[in-house]
């Protein structure tokens, strides 16, 4: 077992090395940016660490953030394994969250053993259907899913905002609450794992989903079929795979996960569905997935690092005033470097080879 792990580590060493260097470079660039804008980077990063680990409460928040990033990242990975780029997770998240919340609100007084599963189902169905539309368009009509999902994001977000903002039809009648739906009944809410933090028993559901994603993608024939379809659609077709079904299935699964993330946000800590339920959470998850080359295990590990930076940066903004958007800058720089990794290492190799050849030539000339 241990030798197996060391073997895979050795195999992945160049990749892990460039990942490490990319992260380091991104943090350095972040530091330079802080210096340029007149802040002390040591102070900044210290505030970030403290903001992510400083107390059990903030650590709970970091863990909760990790779950969101991990699930959204896996949602992206599930789709892209079958060649479907689901950029529309944000919209699916909104609709899933709203559907689950409204289900819970209507079922007030019913036993949680009936109501909560129904909320799960409605979140999954809402997210799944919203991903099914672009999937069908892609498979049946060959309309690019990248654009349709981006457009459907905006549609879903505006729609949910309309329904739940200060004059919307689903708005709460509770006094003193400006926007959002009625609160999910207390007994339906997930229990908190660390008190006063955002970390709830959603961690268990998330772990199950993450395990299922990894298992299906890496250990089953379905996962292999998805991979074949994603890599070469024609090959999949001529191998007798029902590629349409696989592609639609992968996209719907991706949407289902996003819908559940929306539900976890509300049932985990937000209590009400607010138009501000997600601040581009899906896009951050997407970045995690891209950095890790859509590998499920990598996404699970990387989402922790992203969560630390993200929660840390928000705390940094509150404590010393550096804009929390620094996290987005650091993330995107890591991606730039990782996406260019192949090209950069090839350029370095080429240069080395050229140098060697030149030295060789010179030697020959001397002889």
């Amino acid at each position, binding site marked *: 077992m241990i030798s197996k792990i060391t073997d895979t580590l050795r195999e992945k060493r160049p990749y892990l090395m460039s990942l490490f260097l990319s992260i380091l470079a991104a943090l350095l660039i972040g530091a330079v940016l802080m210096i340029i804008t007149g802040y002390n980077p040591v102070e900044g990063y210290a505030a970030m660490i403290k903001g992510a680990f400083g107390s059990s409460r903030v650590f709970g928040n970091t863990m909760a953030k990790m779950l969101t990033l991990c699930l959204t990242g896996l949602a992206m990975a599930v789709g892209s394994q079958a060649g479907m780029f689901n950029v529309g997770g944000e919209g699916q998240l909104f609709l899933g969250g709203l559907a689950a919340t409204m289900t819970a609100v209507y079922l007030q007084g019913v036993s949680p053993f009936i109501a909560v599963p129904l909320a799960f189902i409605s979140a999954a169905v809402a997210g799944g259907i919203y991903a099914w539309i672009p999937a069908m368009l892609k498979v049946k009509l060959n309309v690019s899913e990248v654009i349709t999902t981006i*457009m459907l994001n905006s549609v879903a977000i*505006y729609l949910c905002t309309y329904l739940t903002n200060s004059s919307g039809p689903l708005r709460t009648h509770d006094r003193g609450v400006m926007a959002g739906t009625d609160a999910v009944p207390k007994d339906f809410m997930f229990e908190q794992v660390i008190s006063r933090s955002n970390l709830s028993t959603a961690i268990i559901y998330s772990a199950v989903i993450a395990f299922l994603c990894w298992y299906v993608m890496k250990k089953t024939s379905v996962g292999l079929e998805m991979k074949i379809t994603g890599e070469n659609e024609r090959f999949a077709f001529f191998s007798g795979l029902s590629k349409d079904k696989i592609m639609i299935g992968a996209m719907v699964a991706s949407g289902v996960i996003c819908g559940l993330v929306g539900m976890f946000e509300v049932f985990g800590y937000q209590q009400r569905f607010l138009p501000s339920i997600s601040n581009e959470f899906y896009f951050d998850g997407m970045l995690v997935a891209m950095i890790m080359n859509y590998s499920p295990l990598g996404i699970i590990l990387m989402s922790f690092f992203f969560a630390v930076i993200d929660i840390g940066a928000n705390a940094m903004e509150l404590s010393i005033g550096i804009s929390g958007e620094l996290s987005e800058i650091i993330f995107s720089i890591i991606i*730039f470097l990782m*996406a260019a990794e192949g090209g950069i290492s090839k350029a370095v190799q080429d240069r080395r080879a050229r140098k060697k050849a030149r030295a060789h030539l010179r030697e020959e000339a001397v002889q």
Partner: protein
Amino acid sequence: MSQLSEVFNIGLLQNTLRTATPVILAAMGGLLTEQAGIMNIGMDGMILVGAFVAVAFSYLCASAAMGVLMAVLSGILIGIFFAVFVVKLRSDEFIIGMALNTFAAGLTVYLLRSIFGVKGTFSDAAIVSLPTVHIGFLENIPVLGPLLNDNSIFVYITWLLVFLTWLFLYRTPYGFWLRASGEHPESLETAGISAHKMKFIASILCGIFCGFAGAHLSLGYLTMFSEGMSNSRGFIAFACVIFGMANPPKVFLAALLFGFLQALGLRLQSVGVPADITSTIPYLATVLMLIYIVVSTDRKKKNKAKKQLERI
């Protein structure tokens, strides 16, 4: 009836021109990269940076021209940046494009906070907006007069740029090479012209166009910068490029149609339709138009094949 006239009036057409202009500009850039064989979904970020730089320098230098100039310069830099990754280092266009959008969103908000000390929106009386153009002799013509007069100067420049883009692509050797770099890079290389170089040029031109689009957005359309103000316009421009099959006049029409729909949304708000509902119109329409264009080109291809078969 009176409600209808409140929606469909000259203001609708005026708004169409105003709202379509940034999309047209970005789409012109997008069609150049598309012709050069690069899928560019990073335009949204390019527009955002342009918008920010334009406002920042208009405010700091008290000159709108300076704002536009610096927006264009930033566009050139982003174009080079994009091309280095996508062309030189052969990175995945999709990943680089998405990362560019995130980067632009993060950077603009970060700089907004650290330079101007505000969060969300930056508007100040010291931001100089772009001048509007008043053409005297048009005053007395009923519909055209109010429609073509008093628009921001970029509205007119945009029309000129659409024509110039067409001229460049289809009437100059550079345009020919640029198209070849997307369609047959090997043949172009055989002819002794570097396909990489043409792709670089396309990316840089796209950056410039998006810089213009951003500058118009923040100095012409509005006089302020707000977080994420590009509001998916880059993606809509990308969709327009696909509807218009990367052909300048067709892309122009597609972008005008988008502008019309957005303007219609604005008008509908004035008769009491909620803003969040009308805001979905352009996005829904984009999806529908995309379906239509894909299906219709597919059908055309099939018909053509059928005819050829019959001939045999």
